[in-house]
């Protein structure tokens, strides 16, 4: 608003500057009419501007001037503004207060009480706001109704992927039993017919001593048992789909998906260090100083219960030692350098590599320019994070066999300078002997790259 007021004058000034040589040579009559024209022009401008901005847009004014500290319907850095008229001593009070709060605190009893409640913050003086602008803001505040959160799409929990293997297993078993009974019936019938026809046969061996049966059973057991044993042994140390319960129900879907926060905002050390890093609590508080409650779409757990987002944020405040009522950290009385009651959050690490493997995030994120999602899956769609990849050696090697190296290009100056030592590859690429070089070719699958 302030800017809008200033720009017209800025625009007018050079125009005015064109006139002096003319006006000096003219009679004063001309000057007067000129002034009149200027004034009327200015008036028209202000009028039209006020039509656009001042009267109509209390919301814009509120957002530009007040929203830093005030919310219409809730206490923030300053009090909630809705219903102000019932609280202030007289309607004129509010204009005086907006123009100069400090002076009011010194002279007015209600202003002093207000300051006592919200100190040490003193409201900034808005002497530049005109009366009708203040009116527009107050009207916006009084008419304000909170937007209704969309309740649609609540039942996001899918039950479509039910596991049919149990059903099939039971069916197979039933069929096997039926087949077995039929075989027995068959042999009995044959026995009967044989007796009728007077053919003598040796007493049939019972099935449990029948060598064919025994052999089949052993083979089946061997195959099934062997399959499970081997796949179980391979799975040792692999934790795909591992989804531990975390101390706070932190939804990556809400943060990285709905709110589009970059992964590196919180996990910034992924570009500088071996570890992707868990953000310290102050990073959470960057936003959660202001965001006290969850108002988005309901988050549903797998068992169908709803997550109370606001409660989860309260947990964060407890860990941070933050008092949402006073909007400040607890004092540090025990002298440990952190607010009293603050403690680190014991997140449970999901992606674990054995100690005999070296993995460095910065190599992959900053140098290799890999997306987080390549290994971690669509994190921005996971309410609760689980391990997406197997993190097995074969999985690593596969990617190294396929990923193309970003060579340094002397002409464009782009690419990774480190690889300029591989001049031969460079030449081969130029001569079109090969069309790309994979990580494997530059030693990316050598044992010592990861095991040392």
């Amino acid at each position: 608003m302030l800017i809008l007021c200033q720009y017209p004058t800025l625009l007018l000034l050079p125009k005015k500057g064109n006139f002096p040589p003319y006006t000096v040579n003219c009679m004063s009559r001309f000057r007067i009419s000129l002034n009149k024209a200027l004034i009327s022009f200015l008036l028209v401008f202000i009028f039209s501007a006020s039509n656009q901005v001042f009267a109509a847009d209390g919301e814009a004014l509120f957002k530009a001037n007040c929203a830093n500290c005030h919310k219409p319907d809730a206490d923030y850095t300053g009090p909630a503004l809705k219903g102000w008229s019932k609280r202030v001593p007289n309607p004129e009070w509010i204009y005086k207060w907006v123009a100069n709060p400090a002076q009011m605190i010194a002279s007015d009893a209600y202003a002093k009480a207000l300051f006592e409640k919200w100190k040490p913050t003193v409201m900034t003086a808005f002497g530049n706001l005109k009366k009708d602008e203040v009116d527009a803001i107050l009207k916006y505040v009084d008419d304000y109704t909170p937007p209704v959160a969309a309740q649609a799409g609540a039942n996001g929990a899918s039950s479509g992927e039910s596991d049919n293997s149990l059903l099939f297993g039971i069916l197979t078993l039933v069929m096997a039993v039926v087949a077995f009974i039929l075989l027995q019936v068959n042999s009995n019938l044959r026995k009967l017919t044989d007796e009728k026809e007077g053919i003598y046969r040796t007493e049939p061996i019972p099935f449990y001593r029948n060598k064919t049966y025994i052999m089949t059973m052993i083979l089946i057991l061997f195959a099934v048992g062997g399959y499970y044993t081997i796949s179980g042994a391979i799975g040792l140390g692999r934790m795909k789909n591992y989804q531990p319960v975390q101390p706070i129900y932190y939804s990556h879907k809400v943060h990285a998906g709905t709110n589009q926060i970059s992964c590196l905002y919180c996990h910034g050390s992924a570009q500088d260090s071996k570890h992707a890093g868990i953000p310290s609590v102050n990073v959470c508080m960057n936003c959660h100083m202001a965001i006290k409650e969850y108002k988005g779409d309901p988050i549903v757990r797998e068992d169908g219960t709803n997550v109370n987002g606001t409660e989860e944020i309260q947990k964060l405040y407890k860990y941070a030692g933050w008092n949402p009522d006073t909007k400040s950290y607890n004092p540090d009385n025990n002298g440990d350098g952190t607010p009293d009651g603050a403690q680190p959050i014991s997140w449970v690490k999901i992606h674990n590599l054995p100690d005999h493997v070296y993995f460095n995030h910065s190599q992959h994120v900053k140098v290799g320019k890999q997306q987080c999602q390549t290994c971690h899956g669509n994190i921005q769609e996971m309410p609760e994070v689980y391990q997406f990849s197997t993190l097995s050696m074969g999985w690593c090697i596969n990617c190294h066999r396929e990923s193309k190296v970003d060579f340094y290009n002397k002409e464009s100056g782009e690419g990774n300078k480190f690889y300029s030592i591989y001049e031969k590859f460079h030449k081969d690429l130029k001569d079109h002997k090969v069309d790309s070089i994979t990580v494997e070719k530059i030693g990316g699958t050598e044992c010592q790259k990861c095991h040392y």
Partner: protein
Amino acid sequence: MKKIATLSVVVLTMSLAFVSCDSKREPGKIYMPDMTYSRAYETYAEIDSSLFTGDQSMRGSSKIYYDNKPVTGTIKRGELFPYTLPNDSNGYKMSAMVKNPLDSISAADLKEAGRLFNINCAICHGEKGAGNGPISTSGKIGGIANLTLDNYIKMADGTMFHSITYGKNNMGSYASQLDRNQRWMMVKYIRTLQPKPASATDSTKTK
């Protein structure tokens, strides 16, 4: 006969032993713990805190050490000197006198600054700095600064750095996410987002 029975029992138990405990809430089983768990102190590992604090009453307890800060007074190689102004209204006023130690910024650095801006700042301030990032437009945090406005064009580099370092109003401190050099780079980058001063009189400030 007995042999077969015992054999089948052995095979069954072995396969069961490997297959069972397949809950996704529990970490899987590992072999060779010596090769899986680090003997060295790994980041975020829970450690007997008496090893670090010398406080023997804490013996056997395990705490997580998130911020193993460098020794007080040490400066990383190539790192700028610490910013000494305190986080109070006086420091804020004085910050206007602090000059940006980066005289000029290379194109590559500016690109990097832009990348960091998009990660750390654009979420609220918007990619063009006009205060219209996703958090701002969805109304989750109110009153986000439009950095292209006149009062931010006039704001001194040092004051901007001060605000990024300590936070201002609803904005938190970004000192843990951006080092000093990056913060000064950020100030340079924000200047490129701002429109050129409207008239000649305004251009006395650092551009």
